[in-house]
């Protein structure tokens, strides 16, 4: 297996647009570290192409952005690209971060069976609030940033050489710091919603498989 990053970047609705924009900060970090990167965009985000890419490149680190269920992750629109009982064995011995709802429940478990790899994901929906006024410039949306920077911390910590478990812990600390920051500033009407959402992600984020593995 080669040292490299495969990252899915769907842009089929406002939520995936945001995830893809924030992923630029992850790929920038990988570039700076000289890690090979394969970005997968909408036209390749289907099951057939995804399998082909994984088999051809055989990179050890995979980041998924996109909608998910307990047993699958989607690519472009409703295209399933990873599913229990279909192709989860392709994830064997890799490190995976899935910024997708609920995928750690079953998919994360199956991807790390008989594997030395790890799967970091969520057992709840991954949520974030966005400020509609900034939807055209997601990186300027200070509300979304409170959610998406801590989640970016997972792949960025891995790229910096931390283990899966250490990266999970770093990300969770970032969530708690953001909650603290929000609670210490004068209360705004959106404060309880933001704290509630951040707490949801904090509770739902888990590591499956080998927590000590590094890329």
């Amino acid at each position, binding site marked *: 297996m080669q040292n490299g990053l495969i990252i899915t970047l769907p842009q089929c*609705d406002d939520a995936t647009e945001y995830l893809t924009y924030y992923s630029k900060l992850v790929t920038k970090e990988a570039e700076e570290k000289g890690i090979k990167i394969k970005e997968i965009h909408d036209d390749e985000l289907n099951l057939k192409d995804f399998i082909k890419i994984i088999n051809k490149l055989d990179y050890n680190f995979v980041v998924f952005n996109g909608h998910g269920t307990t047993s699958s992750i989607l690519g472009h629109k409703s295209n399933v690209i990873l599913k229990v009982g279909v192709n989860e064995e392709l994830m064997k011995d890799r490190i995976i971060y899935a910024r*997708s*709802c609920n995928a750690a429940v079953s998919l994360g478990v199956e991807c790390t069976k008989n594997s030395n790899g790890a799967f970091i994901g969520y057992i709840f929906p991954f*949520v974030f*609030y*966005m400020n*509609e006024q900034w939807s055209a410039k997601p990186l300027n949306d200070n509300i979304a940033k409170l959610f998406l920077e801590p989640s970016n911390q997972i792949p960025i910590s891995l790229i910096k050489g931390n283990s899966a478990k250490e990266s999970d812990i770093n990300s969770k600390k970032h969530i708690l710091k953001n909650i603290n920051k929000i609670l210490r500033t004068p209360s705004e009407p959106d404060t309880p*919603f933001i704290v509630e959402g951040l707490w*949801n992600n904090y509770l739902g984020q888990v590591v499956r498989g080998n927590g000590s593995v590094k890329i």
Partner: protein
Amino acid sequence: MSGEKQGVSEKIKQLVIARIKAQMPPNLKLSMGFENSLTKEEMIEHVKAGDEQGAQIVNMHINFIKALTSGKLMKEVNSV
């Protein structure tokens, strides 16, 4: 589900709806894993309907209230 549990569930839904109506700014939208993120009005509709998205919004609220009232939230926040 017992009548008592149904009553509690309905009360929680009403509480969540009242909170969203009263406090959520109209420029906020919630992304929670479905195709499009939800406006304030859409969140209220889903909670009212008691569908999957509505249930997730209610669960998120319950988990938060539990953490707040038990002291777990502040304990964790103060640990960093």
